[in-house]
């Protein structure tokens, strides 16, 4: 990794506010990250931590009532903040593709999968139906669907969830994008299918050199596929860094808590209790001051109520005032 080169996607200070009747909900609060070509960034966190909103913000697909602001948000030199709707539209599906969580509902029930695959290509490339069809067949085969040509005429309801998600992946790859954002692409599938789909996705992105933002709450997945990890809590990236560093030497108490929640081969004793993080995620409505994790943090001190400076040495950074943050990590049992 070379963080000095211009990244494919650079985000600085991304903030998302949702006006509600009881006040403004600060759903995402000033997050920064860089993603280079071919890299896989995994964003982990509990539901409601702002992971999905972040991905929609990059795509420019947020609901109209959500206010987006940032210091910088660039994709390959294109300023996504000032891009016109037309510019965004030409990026979406062509250079940035997205895969959603629910394969059962993310395909249009009224059209055949062939129509939907071909549409993805023909929206951006001036190609004939025959060429689009050939490309669709090629990609269906690539995602491991047998009898691809005959599948084109089928409707989404005729396919199983796993097959549908393969179709969605094929659709995302139709235009050979440079970046794929996958928002919990396997959560809605059977456990046995999850692994297949995930390895397929990772394999294809590696093979085609596509950068990927993978949003998940499954740390086991992250450990296997991530180059970089971003841990999100209550709208902030509380820890970012290369996967090996974050897993090997977690610096934020929340990251450490999360890691204790999954069994690790060789480290977790048989019969030992897995950790839990007590408490609930705080409300983000109104002004949020200080560290949002402090009400659940075992190390909380008075200073946690003030603004939290970014600490650590790039590329491994974290948000915590705890003076012993780094040292405590080493001292604690994993």
């Amino acid at each position: 990794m070379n963080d000095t080169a211009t990244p494919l996607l650079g985000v600085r200070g991304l903030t998302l506010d949702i006006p509600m009747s009881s006040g403004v909900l600060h759903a995402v609060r000033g997050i920064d990250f860089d993603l280079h070509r071919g890299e896989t960034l995994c964003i982990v966190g509990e539901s409601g931590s702002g992971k999905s909103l972040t991905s929609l913000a990059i795509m420019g697909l947020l609901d109209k009532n959500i206010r987006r602001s940032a210091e910088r948000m660039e994709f390959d030199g294109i300023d996504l903040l000032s891009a016109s709707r037309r510019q965004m539209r030409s990026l979406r599906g062509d250079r940035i593709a997205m895969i959603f969580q629910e394969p059962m509902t993310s395909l249009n029930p009224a059209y055949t999968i062939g129509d939907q695959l071909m549409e993805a290509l023909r929206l951006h490339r001036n190609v004939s139906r025959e060429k689009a069809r050939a490309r669709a067949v090629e990609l269906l085969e690539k995602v491991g669907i047998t009898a691809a040509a005959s599948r084109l005429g089928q409707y989404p309801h005729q396919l199983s969830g796993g097959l549908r998600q393969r179709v969605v992946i094929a659709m995302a790859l139709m235009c050979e994008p440079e970046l794929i954002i996958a928002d919990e692409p396997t959560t809605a599938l059977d456990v046995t299918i999850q692994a297949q789909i995930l390895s397929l996705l990772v394999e294809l992105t590696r093979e085609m050199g596509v950068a990927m933002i993978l949003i998940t709450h499954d740390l086991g997945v992250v450990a296997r596929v991530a180059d970089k990890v971003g841990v999100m809590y209550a709208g902030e990236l509380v820890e970012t860094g290369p996967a090996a560093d974050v897993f090997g030497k977690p610096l934020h108490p929340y990251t450490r808590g999360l890691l204790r929640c999954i069994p690790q081969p060789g480290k977790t004793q048989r019969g030992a209790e897995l950790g839990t993080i007590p408490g609930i995620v705080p409300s983000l409505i109104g002004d949020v001051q200080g560290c949002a994790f402090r009400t659940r943090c075992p190390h909380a001190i008075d200073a946690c109520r003030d603004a939290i400076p970014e600490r650590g040495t790039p590329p491994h950074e974290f948000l915590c005032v705890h003076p012993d943050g780094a040292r405590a990590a080493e001292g604690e049992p994993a």
Partner: protein
Amino acid sequence: MALQRIADPLLEEITGPNPRQILRKRVTGHAGLLFGVGVVLVLLIIAILAPVLAPHDPYAQNLANRMVKPVFMGGTWEHPLGTDHLGRDYLSRLIYGARVSLLIGTVAALISGVIGTAMGVAAGYFGGKVDAVVTFLINVRLAMPVVLVALAVVAILGGSLQVVIGVLGLLLWDRFAVVMRASTLQVRRREYVAAAQAIGASTPRVILSEIMPNIANNLIVIVTLEMAHAILLEAALSFLGLGVQPPTPSWGLMVSEGKNMMLFEPWLVLIPGIVLFILVLAINLMGDGLRDVTAPENRS
């Protein structure tokens, strides 16, 4: 629990307003509902107090004083809304007409409500053959043209208030049956119904104490909407001369009687029509408002 009991602003506001406060806030914030309830209440009071409020006898003819213009068109306060083609005071007839409309609307909606609810709840609760029969009957009922059948029956049996109420009551149960069937289907799958059945409650008891209270919201909404429907139909039947018979003051009949003089005295048609429109509008807004306020999907 490691949850620290520190006074921290992040932990505040976990307790929200209680359901009754939410409901009150929603009711007072719903302009349509407030307007609907207000207008219906006012018209209800006017209908009840008709003998006190009406300035004249609604049946008293005065052929020397026919079609006096309303006060805003140059008439006098003696007849604020003028007189009709037989010299009867228009305001008094309008006031007594409110009685006819509200009576027909309420009683017809009650009759059809009882029929439709019984059918719908039975279909939803028992399912199987009962459901098939009820669904079939709903289909048959929907296939019959309401206005035509009502007119034919009224023509055969004679146009009295009772006949009109009876015919409408026997015809307008379809929406009750459809909605109550769907609501019952939804409710009967809930755990508390299974729990009641498990402790050995009898079927009527389960229906009355577990099902009915949970579908009452929807029932009230349909009652209001069907009331409006019945009032409109009565007006149409009376307008066509086969509903309430003269000299009874019915708003539909008043439009019909004013129709012949419409070219010269359009207010004869305008006034009863506007009142009818406002009443039906108010009842509909009340029904829509009740649905908005009580709909489970709106509960936070």
